[in-house]
């Protein structure tokens, strides 16, 4: 029995034992709740108990303490304990599969075994009770004891072993003779892997341990559903927009309402910033993007007739241009919000190709974000992969034009929020702006909204709320999650308003900074300045440090191709 305590075992091996000795009932687990390092002992305990007459009390104690313990990945013994209770409830196969599923995440985090494997082969032979499955222990254990560096390798091994194990289970515990033949092999394997064990200085949790943290993050991120997004884009009709030169007189900072002057999409601004984007930024962008897909569809249905004028203007593919077209009333939001942006635009030169390029990149990013967010939105038609926005000096203004003044409520502004407005420098490119505008869904006029409302119940409330707020819902959910106490609806609404205002201010600042530097496009320097003012970037912490810290690799992987791909929104291929 001594060797058992020293034996390092995986959950699988433990289950083997359990399955074998199921009639023997619960193992007697010692009281010691040890750290990961002592897993071997804890895991050895069940085996020992299998042999000894079990005592239910100890097992119950163990199970009670099991939940109290932090869920260590390496706590195979814990898994064993937890599963053991259900051992008699489910079939061994089911239990085993459960354990395997849970244990697979646990990397090789097994306490360093010291000379634990040497006695195994010897003792295994001694044990007559151990069935063929148990004999597989030495095979499995070595894989478990592989150093973390060899995690992948060990996992592969483990996969093989799992299949082998399952085969064994299917066969119903194969003949012992077959397994005995493996002993020498396993012994050799164990000897081979033993060297790995010795090198295990410290066992650190595998990367997967950190996954739970990621899983708890707000569910803002969604896989990019390119097809759905393209579908939505196609649905967006093109609508002509009257030229609204009158609005250009507005100063960048609205005298009356500085913050509302450029509601523009924060999303766009974020996307405007090249290179690194912080998580928050991407989240904002995602939220903004959400509105985009919904909006275009609305506008699309409402004003099919408007498509023709715009079609002539806008990009090669109608999909992109559609979203922003909407009805003139819709564009009121644009005007209101984008006053500041427009003013800057009007000041600057017209249609610079470089700017258009920039805008397109931003738009692409926005589109990408939208695609992420609007997974569930299947109305948007397919759009071509690369949408080129033709610079059109007049068109952008047109979209903004319809009624700069009329915007009744902030909600409409919200519709404009997304990017379109903000593109300060790039605004000149009419097509680009159009593109941006449609990226961010504009709230159609209320009657049209009412029509659209029944269409889109799934994404969220329509008429009473802006698409912006629907996007901000994710923030509210995250907020209520971390608050740990229930949140009132009014509190959520207030929170959304505050966030809305905050994001608008943020984007407004970005535009102002770009304008301050005499540029028409928001660059990374502008974003860095903004973050410096916020206190996120200091002399000690640089922007890149923050990116590394907060922008997970999987999201960078999605963003970088879009940012570096020039005009194509979606990654090539």
């Amino acid at each position, binding site marked *: 029995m001594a060797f058992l305590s020293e034996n390092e075992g995986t959950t699988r091996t433990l289950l083997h034992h359990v399955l074998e000795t199921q009639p023997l009932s619960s193992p007697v687990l010692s009281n010691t709740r040890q750290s990961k390092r002592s897993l071997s002992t804890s895991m050895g305990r069940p085996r020992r108990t299998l042999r000894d007459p079990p005592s239910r009390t100890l097992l119950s104690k163990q199970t009670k303490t099991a939940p109290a313990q932090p869920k260590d990945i390496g706590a195979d013994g814990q898994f064993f304990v937890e599963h053991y209770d259900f051992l008699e409830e489910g079939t061994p196969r089911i239990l085993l599969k459960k354990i395997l599923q849970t244990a697979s995440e646990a990397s090789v985090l097994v306490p360093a075994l010291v000379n634990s494997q040497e006695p195994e082969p010897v003792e295994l032979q001694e044990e007559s009770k151990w069935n063929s499955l148990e004999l597989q222990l030495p095979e499995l254990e070595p894989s478990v004891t592989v150093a973390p560096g060899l995690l992948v390798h060990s996992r592969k091994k483990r996969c093989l072993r799992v299949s082998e194990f399952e085969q064994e289970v299917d066969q119903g515990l194969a003949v012992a003779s077959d397994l005995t033949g493996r002993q020498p092999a396993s012994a050799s394997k164990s000897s081979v892997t033993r060297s790995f064990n010795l090198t295990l200085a410290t066992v650190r949790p595998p990367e997967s341990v950190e996954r739970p943290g990621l899983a708890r993050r707000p569910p803002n991120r969604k896989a990019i559903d390119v097809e759905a997004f393209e579908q939505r884009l196609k649905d967006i009709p093109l609508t002509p927009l009257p030229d609204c030169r009158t609005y250009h007189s507005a100063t960048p*900072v*609205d*005298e*009356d*309402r*500085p913050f509302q002057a450029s509601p523009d999409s924060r999303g766009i601004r974020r996307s405007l910033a090249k290179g690194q984007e912080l998580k928050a930024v991407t989240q904002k962008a995602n939220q903004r993007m959400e509105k985009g897909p919904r909006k275009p569809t609305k506008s699309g249905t409402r004003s099919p007739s408007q498509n023709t004028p715009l079609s002539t203007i806008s990009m090669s593919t109608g999909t992109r241009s559609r979203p922003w077209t909407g009805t003139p009333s819709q564009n009121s939001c644009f005007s209101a919000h984008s006053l500041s942006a427009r003013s800057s635009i009007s000041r600057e030169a017209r249609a610079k190709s470089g700017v258009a390029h920039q805008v397109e990149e931003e738009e692409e990013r926005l589109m990408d974000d939208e695609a992420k967010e609007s997974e569930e939105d299947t109305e948007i038609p397919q759009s071509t992969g690369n949408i080129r926005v033709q610079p059109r000096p007049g068109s952008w203004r047109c979209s903004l034009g319809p009624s700069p003044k009329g915007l009744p409520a902030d909600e409409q502004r919200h519709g404009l929020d997304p990017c379109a407005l903000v593109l300060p420098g790039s605004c000149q490119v009419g097509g680009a702006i159009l593109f941006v505008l449609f990226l961010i869904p504009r709230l159609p006029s209320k009657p049209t909204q009412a029509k659209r409302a029944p269409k889109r119940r799934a994404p969220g409330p329509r008429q009473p709320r802006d698409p912006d707020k629907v996007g901000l819902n994710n923030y509210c959910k995250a907020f209520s999650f971390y608050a740990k106490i229930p949140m009132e609806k009014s509190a959520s609404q207030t929170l959304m308003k505050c966030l809305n205002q905050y994001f608008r201010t943020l984007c407004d600042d970005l535009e*102002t*900074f770009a304008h*301050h*530097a*005499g540029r028409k496009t928001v660059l990374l*320097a*502008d974003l860095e*300045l903004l973050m*410096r*003012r916020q206190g996120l970037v200091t002399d000690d912490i640089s922007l890149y440090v923050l990116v590394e810290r907060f922008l997970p690799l999987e999201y960078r992987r999605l963003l970088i191709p879009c940012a570096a791909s020039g005009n194509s929104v979606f990654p090539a291929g």
Partner: protein
Amino acid sequence: MELGQREEEEEEEDQRQLTLIQNLKATVHYTVGSMCQEAADAKGVRFTKPAIAAISEVTFRQCEHFAKDLEMFARHAKRSTINMEDVKLLARRSSSLLNYITEKSEEISRINQEQKDKKKKKTEGGNKKSSKQAVTEMDIDD
């Protein structure tokens, strides 16, 4: 020996810095106090001493922030001198303050322009002094 001297110099500089800061804080406190006095007389409200101290402390720290922001803005615009544009950017949050500053800046620029015109018309020597005095007086009034 050199290290010791350097340390002493650094300490002296730190002390000078501290005294400088204290002097500035005292000045700010005095100004805040006088302004609070005026407001109290105007509104018929009284200001407690801790309140005035708090206001002056906040004002001083805000000034530090302003200075850093101004420097950042100037550097962002690839300039080495803080400009009127930087100041306007700083004040963009408050619409009324922005209006005020814009008006004042326009006024100052207008006055300077007039002064320059006068200079050109008259002789340079005498006119420079008078124009400078006028500009400084305008600044004080502002």
